[in-house]
């Protein structure tokens, strides 16, 4: 195995696969990064028990030669030290030579490292997928769906499937649902899928999904999502992303989403966001982070927060109010998360009672919703 490679392309690729490299040594080989070079380019693979990331540095990109391959081959290098070395190499190019006992020499300008590699045959094989359960969507859409739901997952390991995001697919419509049982976020979009493809209970671990969002960050174009029994694969340009799926049935969330309400409020997203953000300056020190809204008929939402040892804040935001007047308290962070995820200048809020969940939706669309369960105060 022998080739030369652009150092900046290598640094980028290594930092991407490093996100999946295991820190635990239960399976020692998984603390390594697998590298395979052939006429198409260099493939790097990082993996842990939850997810696997495979990135390709193509031989040529935009008329630039990135990889000059002399002999094909494969090796596994210790992940942490390899990525640290690559980041600190001095030159623009790296020469990479591996002998038949996996001893690896990395040379860049005046620096030369010799690393003990491992037999790539020991590295676990990637899961195999049948391509019949597949749908496609633009990368930008997938990223926004991830951004608008991921924050609502539970961060407590004990919550099982609630630590993941439900991906459902029906009649060409993809739905993401995330909830920690105190708030819920849902986003829907039409995607390209074979007729009749239905996916009922695919639960992607929250951490995997957020890594996917990060790794897609500057990728445009379309991505394919392919499913198997307990794994998913996302395929984009020069990237394969595999994640384990969570076991167990996701709770039925349709029944908890209110169909109608007592009070409807329309308000500027930016104005209400800023006022909640200010009120949170007082509430955030309290353990519950409670702020209170009083919705008044004359067209205002009063935002109030008080903390025993700190002080209080009160302000009014003008709004269009239809229905009963109402007061309710909730966790300010849940509201901030939801309002920041809404891609719309105006929102519509549907209140159902002081102790029952309320809905926040973009005023002009129906494909996104956020649900917040109030805090019971005395």
């Amino acid at each position, binding site marked *: 195995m022998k080739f030369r490679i652009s150092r900046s392309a290598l640094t980028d690729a290594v930092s991407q696969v490093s996100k999946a490299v295991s820190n635990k040594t239960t399976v020692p080989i998984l603390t390594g990064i697998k590298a395979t070079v052939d006429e198409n380019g260099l493939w790097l693979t990082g993996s842990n028990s939850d997810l696997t990331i495979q990135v390709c540095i193509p031989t040529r990109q935009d008329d630039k030669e990135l990889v000059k391959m002399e002999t094909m081959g494969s090796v596994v290098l210790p992940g942490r030290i390899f990525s640290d070395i690559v980041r600190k190499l001095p030159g623009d190019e790296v020469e990479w030579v591996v002998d038949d006992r996996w001893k690896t020499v990395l040379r860049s300008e005046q620096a030369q490292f010799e690393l003990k590699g491992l037999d790539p045959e020991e590295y676990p094989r990637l899961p195999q997928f049948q391509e019949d359960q597949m749908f496609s969507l633009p990368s930008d859409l997938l990223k926004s769906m991830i951004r608008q739901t991921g924050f609502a997952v*539970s961060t*407590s390991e*004990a*919550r099982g499937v609630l630590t993941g995001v439900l991906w459902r697919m029906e009649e060409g419509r993809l739905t993401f649902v995330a*909830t920690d*049982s*105190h*708030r*819920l976020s849902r986003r829907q979009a039409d995607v390209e899928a074979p007729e009749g493809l239905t996916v009922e209970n695919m639960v992607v671990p929250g951490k995997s999904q957020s890594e996917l969002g990060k790794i897609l960050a500057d990728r445009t174009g379309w991505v394919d999502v392919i499913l198997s029994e307990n794994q998913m694969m996302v395929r984009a340009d020069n990237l394969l992303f595999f994640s384990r799926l969570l076991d167990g049935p996701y*709770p039925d969330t349709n029944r*908890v989403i209110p169909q109608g309400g007592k009070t409807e409020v329309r308000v500027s997203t930016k104005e209400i966001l800023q006022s909640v953000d200010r009120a949170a300056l007082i509430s955030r020190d*309290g*353990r*519950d982070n*409670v702020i209170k809204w009083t919705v008044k008929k004359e067209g205002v939402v009063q935002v109030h927060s008080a903390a025993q040892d700190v002080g209080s804040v009160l302000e009014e935001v003008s709004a269009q109010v239809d229905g009963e007047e109402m007061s309710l*308290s909730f*966790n300010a962070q849940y509201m901030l998360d939801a309002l920041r995820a809404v891609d719309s200048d105006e929102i519509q809020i549907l209140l159902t009672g002081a*102790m*029952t*969940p309320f809905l926040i939706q973009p005023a002009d669309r129906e494909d996104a919703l956020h*649900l917040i*369960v*109030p*805090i*019971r*105060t*005395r």
Partner: protein
Amino acid sequence: MGKRKRTVLLADMNAFYASVEQTLDPSLRHRPLIVCGDPDQRHGIVLAASYEAKAFGVKTGMPVSRAKELCPDAKLIPPHMSTYVQYSVRIVDILKEFSPLVEPFSIDEAFVELTGCEALFGDGETAARQIQQRIDEETGIPCSIGVGPNKLLAKMAADLKKPRGLTVLTQKQVAKRLWPLPVVRLFGVGHRMEHHLHRMGIRTIGDLAQADPDLLHHRFGIIGRVLHQSAHGIDDSPVDPHSLDGNKSIGHQFTLPRDYTEEKELRLVLRELAEEVAGRARQAGVVGQTVSLTLKGADFRSIHRALTMPDPSNLGRPLFQAAMTLLHQHWHGQPVRLVGITLSNLRTDRGIQLNLFEQTEKEQRLAETVDKIRQKFGKESILLAQSLTESSVFSDRAGKIGGHRM
């Protein structure tokens, strides 16, 4: 407190519950007396024994059946918790006349920081004598007092001579008077810790003082270092009048009328205890997130395990579910004689985050309504239907005053 030499005193009421009973009823004086749960129900343990009973070998915490074997003539009486609390408050009030810094340590013990009050009452020993005399005159309760340069040595001193002892322990006397004692006598060493220390070859307080503090730290964490300091008589903790203000946990335990071996029987007891603990949490205006389960049997070591729930609560059902999870994980069918549930990790219930999938709000309203009915018509006026079955401990519980804190 700086480097100033301190004078701390611990007043320990001798055989407190028994002494109160003897003060109130002269016919009980100078004879063996045991305060215990209802003797007819084979109710567990000795809560307090008079010195006359202690002379026969009766000890606090011993099963009543064993105590009766040792001292068949002893008079058994049920506890009157509210009376003991009144006495305890009166005694603390007396102590407060000697210093503003009084820390009630338990119902029958209190620390007094005398540092700076020497000009008023003389040195520690003189003040202690006055205190002893006043408590005896005004309440009739005998007490032992320990005087030392810190809380640890005051406590150790008070334990050296009972009843009616007055012991002064200085830093210089630690090696001579404390080091020969078995390590379990050191404040902060329980039976479990004693067991661990024995395995390391540490049998006396002196052995502990000579042990390598780094090794103790490695083995027991920060507690190891604290114990090593304690063995040298070193303790910087202040006398804190508010130490009992914040209730750090709410718990109930119950000694069963017979050994329970069936899950369905324990299930019912746990259900009732969970309701009881939840009710007390609601009364105190708190919710808690950590549930601990204690099980004790005649022939196995106690099981004590804790679980943190996803959301804090003061409702019986979630507490019960957590306790059942712990029971399933850690109980393997041994006969159980004592069951306890404790709720900790407490915070105010002013805001309760409601849940999308559970009827928290409805359950909360139901619980508060039950609380109100019980307040008005008594605890037994409304209860779970299953509490009418034989395994129930509820009707027994409701008659108790306060029960006993774990």
